[in-house]
Protein backbone atom coordinates (compact mmCIF):
# COMPACT_ATOMS: atom_id res chain seq x y z
CA UNK A 1 0.00 0.00 0.00
CA UNK A 2 1.29 3.44 -0.88
CA UNK A 3 1.09 6.35 1.56
CA UNK A 4 -2.53 6.95 2.60
CA UNK A 5 -1.99 10.57 3.63
CA UNK A 6 -2.26 11.75 0.02
CA UNK A 7 -4.22 11.19 -3.18
CA UNK A 8 -3.23 10.08 -6.64
CA UNK A 9 -4.03 10.65 -10.32
CA UNK A 10 -4.27 7.91 -12.93
CA UNK A 11 -1.35 9.61 -14.66
CA UNK A 12 0.68 8.76 -11.50
CA UNK A 13 1.15 12.12 -9.81
CA UNK A 14 0.54 12.27 -6.05
CA UNK A 15 -0.82 15.21 -4.11
CA UNK A 16 -0.73 15.83 -0.37
CA UNK A 17 -2.78 18.81 0.79
CA UNK A 18 -2.15 20.42 4.16
CA UNK A 19 -3.56 23.79 5.19
CA UNK A 20 -4.44 24.65 1.61
CA UNK A 21 -0.95 23.87 0.29
CA UNK A 22 -0.53 20.89 -2.06
CA UNK A 23 2.78 19.10 -2.25
CA UNK A 24 3.02 17.27 -5.58
CA UNK A 25 5.27 14.52 -6.90
CA UNK A 26 5.16 11.32 -8.94
CA UNK A 27 4.68 7.79 -7.65
CA UNK A 28 7.09 4.88 -7.44
CA UNK A 29 5.05 3.22 -10.22
CA UNK A 30 5.73 6.13 -12.58
CA UNK A 31 9.42 6.15 -11.71
CA UNK A 32 9.79 2.41 -12.27
CA UNK A 33 8.27 2.70 -15.74
CA UNK A 34 10.31 5.73 -16.73
CA UNK A 35 13.72 4.44 -15.53
CA UNK A 36 17.10 5.95 -16.39
CA UNK A 37 15.99 9.54 -15.75
CA UNK A 38 18.11 12.30 -17.26
CA UNK A 39 16.27 15.64 -17.14
CA UNK A 40 13.47 17.29 -15.21
CA UNK A 41 11.81 20.64 -15.87
CA UNK A 42 9.69 22.18 -13.10
CA UNK A 43 7.75 25.45 -13.06
CA UNK A 44 9.17 28.55 -11.44
CA UNK A 45 7.99 29.85 -8.10
CA UNK A 46 5.17 32.33 -8.68
CA UNK A 47 3.86 30.66 -11.83
CA UNK A 48 0.41 29.11 -12.08
CA UNK A 49 -0.62 25.52 -12.63
CA UNK A 50 -4.01 24.24 -13.77
CA UNK A 51 -5.85 21.02 -12.99
CA UNK A 52 -5.20 18.43 -15.69
CA UNK A 53 -2.61 20.49 -17.53
CA UNK A 54 1.11 19.86 -17.74
CA UNK A 55 3.20 21.45 -14.98
CA UNK A 56 6.52 19.96 -16.00
CA UNK A 57 8.35 17.41 -18.08
CA UNK A 58 10.67 14.55 -17.31
CA UNK A 59 13.05 12.74 -19.66
CA UNK A 60 14.32 9.22 -19.37
CA UNK A 61 16.98 8.02 -21.79
CA UNK A 62 14.28 7.00 -24.26
CA UNK A 63 11.24 9.21 -23.70
CA UNK A 64 9.98 12.60 -22.58
CA UNK A 65 6.82 12.48 -20.48
CA UNK A 66 4.58 15.30 -19.34
CA UNK A 67 3.64 15.73 -15.67
CA UNK A 68 0.04 16.70 -14.89
CA UNK A 69 -1.19 18.91 -12.10
CA UNK A 70 -3.76 17.52 -9.66
CA UNK A 71 -4.62 21.07 -8.54
CA UNK A 72 -4.89 24.63 -9.79
CA UNK A 73 -3.15 27.47 -8.05
CA UNK A 74 0.07 29.37 -7.58
CA UNK A 75 3.41 27.57 -7.33
CA UNK A 76 4.88 28.74 -4.02
CA UNK A 77 7.92 26.46 -4.08
CA UNK A 78 9.75 24.05 -6.40
CA UNK A 79 12.28 21.41 -5.39
CA UNK A 80 15.23 23.12 -7.06
CA UNK A 81 17.69 20.41 -5.96
CA UNK A 82 15.72 17.59 -7.55
CA UNK A 83 16.74 18.10 -11.22
CA UNK A 84 20.37 17.56 -10.19
CA UNK A 85 19.54 14.59 -7.96
CA UNK A 86 17.12 12.53 -10.00
CA UNK A 87 18.11 9.38 -8.12
CA UNK A 88 15.96 10.74 -5.29
CA UNK A 89 12.93 9.82 -7.39
CA UNK A 90 13.88 6.15 -7.12
CA UNK A 91 14.96 6.40 -3.49
CA UNK A 92 12.16 8.48 -1.99
CA UNK A 93 9.43 9.28 -4.53
CA UNK A 94 7.02 10.17 -1.72
CA UNK A 95 9.56 12.09 0.34
CA UNK A 96 12.51 14.19 -0.67
CA UNK A 97 11.65 13.82 -4.37
CA UNK A 98 8.62 16.09 -4.03
CA UNK A 99 8.41 18.43 -7.03
CA UNK A 100 6.29 21.51 -6.34
CA UNK A 101 4.15 23.10 -3.65
CA UNK A 102 0.99 24.88 -4.78
CA UNK A 103 -1.43 27.23 -3.00
CA UNK A 104 -4.61 25.41 -3.99
CA UNK A 105 -7.61 27.13 -5.55
CA UNK A 106 -9.13 24.02 -7.18
CA UNK A 107 -8.56 20.30 -6.76
CA UNK A 108 -9.00 17.65 -9.46
CA UNK A 109 -12.17 15.57 -9.07
CA UNK A 110 -10.18 12.60 -10.41
CA UNK A 111 -7.88 12.23 -7.39
CA UNK A 112 -7.98 8.75 -5.87
CA UNK A 113 -7.21 7.33 -2.45
CA UNK A 114 -4.17 5.06 -2.12
CA UNK A 115 -6.19 1.83 -2.24
CA UNK A 116 -7.91 2.78 -5.49
CA UNK A 117 -4.59 3.89 -6.96
CA UNK A 118 -2.96 0.59 -5.99
CA UNK A 119 -5.75 -1.21 -7.86
CA UNK A 120 -5.21 1.05 -10.87
CA UNK A 121 -1.48 0.27 -10.90
CA UNK A 122 -2.13 -3.47 -10.66
CA UNK A 123 -4.47 -3.22 -13.65
CA UNK A 124 -1.82 -1.34 -15.66
CA UNK A 125 0.80 -3.94 -14.79
Amino acid at each position, binding site marked *: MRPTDRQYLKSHEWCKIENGIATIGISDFAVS*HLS*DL*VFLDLPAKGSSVTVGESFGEI*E*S*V*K*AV*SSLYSPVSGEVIDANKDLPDNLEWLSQEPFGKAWMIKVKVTTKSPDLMAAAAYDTHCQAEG
Partner: protein
Amino acid sequence: MLRVIRHEPLPAARNMAIDEALLASAATPTLRLYGWSPHAVSLGYFQRSADFADLPPGTPIVRRLTGGGAIHHGDELTFALAIDARWLPRDIAASYRLLHGAVIDALAAVGVASHLVEGQPPSARPEQRWCFAGPTRDDIATSGGKLLGSAQRRVHAPRERVLHHGSLVLQRPALTPFVAAVADSMPVAAALRQRLGDEVVDRLAAVLGLQPVAGALTADERSLAADLEARRYADPAFVHRR
Protein backbone atom coordinates in the same frame (compact mmCIF):
# COMPACT_ATOMS: atom_id res chain seq x y z
CA MET B 1 -6.42 0.50 -38.98
CA LEU B 2 -3.04 2.20 -39.21
CA ARG B 3 -3.31 5.38 -41.28
CA VAL B 4 -0.14 5.72 -43.35
CA ILE B 5 0.85 9.18 -44.56
CA ARG B 6 3.81 9.59 -46.91
CA HIS B 7 5.21 13.07 -47.31
CA GLU B 8 7.90 14.40 -49.57
CA PRO B 9 10.86 15.98 -47.74
CA LEU B 10 9.67 19.08 -45.85
CA PRO B 11 11.31 21.88 -43.84
CA ALA B 12 12.27 20.96 -40.28
CA ALA B 13 9.76 23.17 -38.47
CA ARG B 14 6.90 21.85 -40.58
CA ASN B 15 7.89 18.25 -39.95
CA MET B 16 7.94 18.72 -36.19
CA ALA B 17 4.67 20.69 -36.24
CA ILE B 18 2.87 17.98 -38.20
CA ASP B 19 4.09 15.31 -35.80
CA GLU B 20 2.86 17.24 -32.76
CA ALA B 21 -0.47 17.81 -34.51
CA LEU B 22 -0.74 14.05 -35.03
CA LEU B 23 0.07 13.40 -31.37
CA ALA B 24 -2.54 15.93 -30.28
CA SER B 25 -5.36 15.19 -32.65
CA ALA B 26 -5.18 11.92 -34.52
CA ALA B 27 -7.97 9.61 -33.40
CA THR B 28 -6.61 6.91 -35.69
CA PRO B 29 -3.20 5.32 -35.13
CA THR B 30 -1.00 7.10 -37.66
CA LEU B 31 2.39 6.38 -39.20
CA ARG B 32 3.98 9.22 -41.17
CA LEU B 33 7.02 8.71 -43.41
CA TYR B 34 8.99 11.77 -44.49
CA GLY B 35 12.33 13.40 -45.15
CA TRP B 36 13.99 16.78 -44.61
CA SER B 37 14.47 19.58 -47.12
CA PRO B 38 16.65 21.41 -46.54
CA HIS B 39 18.72 19.06 -44.42
CA ALA B 40 18.55 20.17 -40.78
CA VAL B 41 19.67 19.49 -37.23
CA SER B 42 17.01 18.55 -34.68
CA LEU B 43 17.76 18.98 -31.00
CA GLY B 44 16.34 16.69 -28.35
CA TYR B 45 13.66 18.41 -26.28
CA PHE B 46 15.95 19.06 -23.30
CA GLN B 47 19.17 19.88 -25.13
CA ARG B 48 20.86 23.28 -24.95
CA SER B 49 21.10 25.09 -28.25
CA ALA B 50 24.27 26.82 -27.03
CA ASP B 51 26.00 23.43 -27.23
CA PHE B 52 25.52 23.58 -31.01
CA ALA B 53 26.93 27.05 -31.60
CA ASP B 54 29.68 25.47 -33.71
CA LEU B 55 27.34 24.26 -36.45
CA PRO B 56 28.09 25.63 -39.92
CA PRO B 57 26.42 29.03 -40.38
CA GLY B 58 22.96 28.74 -41.87
CA THR B 59 22.33 25.18 -40.67
CA PRO B 60 18.57 24.96 -39.97
CA ILE B 61 17.88 23.94 -36.37
CA VAL B 62 14.64 22.75 -34.85
CA ARG B 63 13.75 21.50 -31.38
CA ARG B 64 11.91 18.18 -31.26
CA LEU B 65 9.07 17.35 -28.89
CA THR B 66 10.80 14.02 -28.30
CA GLY B 67 13.88 13.53 -26.16
CA GLY B 68 17.37 12.20 -26.74
CA GLY B 69 20.33 13.65 -28.60
CA ALA B 70 20.63 15.82 -31.68
CA ILE B 71 20.36 14.39 -35.18
CA HIS B 72 21.67 15.78 -38.45
CA HIS B 73 18.84 14.84 -40.78
CA GLY B 74 20.36 14.33 -44.21
CA ASP B 75 19.32 11.56 -46.54
CA GLU B 76 17.22 9.41 -44.25
CA LEU B 77 13.89 7.66 -43.95
CA THR B 78 12.17 9.33 -41.01
CA PHE B 79 9.01 8.02 -39.47
CA ALA B 80 6.67 9.25 -36.78
CA LEU B 81 4.20 6.93 -35.11
CA ALA B 82 1.40 8.73 -33.24
CA ILE B 83 -0.73 6.24 -31.38
CA ASP B 84 -2.75 5.62 -28.23
CA ALA B 85 -0.48 4.16 -25.57
CA ARG B 86 -2.63 1.04 -25.26
CA TRP B 87 -1.23 -0.23 -28.57
CA LEU B 88 2.30 -0.33 -27.15
CA PRO B 89 3.87 -1.99 -24.11
CA ARG B 90 3.68 0.36 -21.12
CA ASP B 91 7.33 -0.29 -20.39
CA ILE B 92 9.28 2.15 -22.53
CA ALA B 93 12.18 -0.22 -23.23
CA ALA B 94 9.72 -2.95 -24.25
CA SER B 95 8.02 -0.56 -26.68
CA TYR B 96 11.39 0.16 -28.26
CA ARG B 97 12.17 -3.51 -28.63
CA LEU B 98 8.81 -4.13 -30.31
CA LEU B 99 9.17 -1.29 -32.83
CA HIS B 100 12.88 -1.82 -33.42
CA GLY B 101 12.32 -5.50 -34.04
CA ALA B 102 9.95 -4.52 -36.84
CA VAL B 103 12.50 -2.13 -38.36
CA ILE B 104 15.23 -4.79 -38.16
CA ASP B 105 12.93 -7.14 -40.09
CA ALA B 106 12.23 -4.40 -42.66
CA LEU B 107 15.96 -3.84 -43.14
CA ALA B 108 16.57 -7.57 -43.47
CA ALA B 109 13.87 -7.78 -46.14
CA VAL B 110 15.85 -5.40 -48.35
CA GLY B 111 19.18 -7.07 -47.54
CA VAL B 112 20.58 -4.95 -44.70
CA ALA B 113 21.75 -6.94 -41.68
CA SER B 114 21.29 -5.14 -38.37
CA HIS B 115 20.73 -6.04 -34.74
CA LEU B 116 19.51 -4.77 -31.40
CA VAL B 117 22.34 -3.51 -29.23
CA GLU B 118 22.56 -5.59 -26.07
CA GLY B 119 24.16 -5.31 -22.71
CA GLN B 120 25.07 -1.64 -22.63
CA PRO B 121 22.73 0.10 -20.22
CA PRO B 122 21.85 3.66 -21.18
CA SER B 123 24.05 6.17 -19.41
CA ALA B 124 22.31 7.95 -16.58
CA ARG B 125 23.18 11.37 -17.94
CA PRO B 126 24.31 11.25 -21.55
CA GLU B 127 27.21 13.55 -22.20
CA GLN B 128 27.22 12.99 -25.94
CA ARG B 129 25.30 15.67 -27.76
CA TRP B 130 24.64 13.60 -30.92
CA CYS B 131 22.02 10.86 -30.83
CA PHE B 132 24.14 8.59 -33.00
CA ALA B 133 27.38 9.05 -31.06
CA GLY B 134 26.79 6.31 -28.54
CA PRO B 135 24.61 3.27 -29.23
CA THR B 136 22.86 2.11 -26.09
CA ARG B 137 20.82 -0.95 -25.22
CA ASP B 138 17.94 -1.65 -27.64
CA ASP B 139 19.28 0.66 -30.36
CA ILE B 140 19.54 -0.70 -33.91
CA ALA B 141 23.11 -1.02 -35.14
CA THR B 142 25.15 -2.65 -37.85
CA SER B 143 28.79 -3.60 -37.67
CA GLY B 144 29.44 0.00 -38.76
CA GLY B 145 27.62 1.66 -35.85
CA LYS B 146 24.19 2.96 -34.93
CA LEU B 147 21.73 2.98 -37.84
CA LEU B 148 18.47 4.23 -36.34
CA GLY B 149 17.91 7.17 -34.00
CA SER B 150 14.72 6.92 -31.92
CA ALA B 151 12.93 8.98 -29.32
CA GLN B 152 9.50 9.20 -27.73
CA ARG B 153 7.13 11.70 -26.18
CA ARG B 154 4.41 10.35 -23.90
CA VAL B 155 1.36 12.34 -22.84
CA HIS B 156 -1.46 11.36 -20.49
CA ALA B 157 -4.05 14.04 -21.24
CA PRO B 158 -6.57 14.22 -22.74
CA ARG B 159 -5.68 10.54 -23.16
CA GLU B 160 -2.54 8.44 -23.08
CA ARG B 161 -0.70 8.89 -26.34
CA VAL B 162 2.78 8.18 -27.65
CA LEU B 163 4.77 9.90 -30.38
CA HIS B 164 7.65 7.70 -31.51
CA HIS B 165 10.27 9.18 -33.83
CA GLY B 166 12.61 7.04 -35.91
CA SER B 167 15.44 8.29 -38.15
CA LEU B 168 16.81 5.56 -40.39
CA VAL B 169 20.03 6.73 -42.02
CA LEU B 170 20.26 6.09 -45.75
CA GLN B 171 23.49 8.00 -46.40
CA ARG B 172 25.91 9.43 -43.87
CA PRO B 173 25.09 13.05 -43.03
CA ALA B 174 27.92 15.58 -43.28
CA LEU B 175 27.91 16.60 -39.62
CA THR B 176 27.78 13.08 -38.17
CA PRO B 177 29.92 10.91 -40.45
CA PHE B 178 30.40 8.37 -37.65
CA VAL B 179 26.91 6.90 -38.10
CA ALA B 180 26.10 3.69 -39.94
CA ALA B 181 24.02 3.99 -43.11
CA VAL B 182 22.03 1.76 -45.43
CA ALA B 183 24.42 2.94 -48.14
CA ASP B 184 27.16 0.96 -46.38
CA SER B 185 25.37 -2.18 -47.56
CA MET B 186 24.00 -1.21 -50.96
CA PRO B 187 23.43 1.72 -53.31
CA VAL B 188 20.48 3.83 -52.21
CA ALA B 189 18.33 4.26 -55.30
CA ALA B 190 14.70 5.35 -55.63
CA ALA B 191 13.46 1.76 -55.83
CA LEU B 192 15.21 0.87 -52.58
CA ARG B 193 13.77 3.91 -50.80
CA GLN B 194 10.27 2.91 -51.85
CA ARG B 195 10.73 -0.72 -50.92
CA LEU B 196 12.32 0.05 -47.57
CA GLY B 197 9.48 2.46 -46.80
CA ASP B 198 6.93 -0.20 -47.73
CA GLU B 199 8.67 -2.77 -45.54
CA VAL B 200 8.84 -0.39 -42.57
CA VAL B 201 5.11 0.29 -42.92
CA ASP B 202 4.17 -3.38 -43.24
CA ARG B 203 6.39 -4.59 -40.40
CA LEU B 204 5.35 -1.86 -37.97
CA ALA B 205 1.68 -2.44 -38.81
CA ALA B 206 2.17 -6.17 -38.25
CA VAL B 207 3.70 -5.86 -34.78
CA LEU B 208 0.95 -3.42 -33.81
CA GLY B 209 -1.71 -5.78 -35.15
CA LEU B 210 -3.13 -3.07 -37.41
CA GLN B 211 -4.01 -2.97 -41.09
CA PRO B 212 -2.08 -0.24 -42.98
CA VAL B 213 -4.27 2.09 -45.04
CA ALA B 214 -2.94 5.01 -47.08
CA GLY B 215 -4.28 8.34 -45.85
CA ALA B 216 -3.64 12.06 -45.55
CA LEU B 217 -3.78 14.79 -42.92
CA THR B 218 -7.23 16.04 -42.09
CA ALA B 219 -8.12 19.73 -42.47
CA ASP B 220 -8.01 20.10 -38.67
CA GLU B 221 -4.56 18.50 -38.50
CA ARG B 222 -3.25 20.76 -41.25
CA SER B 223 -4.62 23.78 -39.45
CA LEU B 224 -3.14 22.74 -36.10
CA ALA B 225 0.21 21.97 -37.73
CA ALA B 226 0.30 25.40 -39.38
CA ASP B 227 -0.40 27.03 -36.02
CA LEU B 228 2.26 24.94 -34.23
CA GLU B 229 4.81 25.66 -36.93
CA ALA B 230 4.30 29.42 -36.66
CA ARG B 231 4.11 29.81 -32.90
CA ARG B 232 6.45 27.05 -31.76
CA TYR B 233 8.79 25.21 -34.10
CA ALA B 234 9.75 28.14 -36.35
CA ASP B 235 9.99 30.48 -33.36
CA PRO B 236 13.62 31.07 -32.30
CA ALA B 237 12.39 31.46 -28.71
CA PHE B 238 11.35 27.80 -28.71
CA VAL B 239 14.42 26.57 -30.57
CA HIS B 240 16.64 28.35 -28.06
CA ARG B 241 14.45 27.86 -24.98
CA ARG B 242 17.30 26.01 -23.31
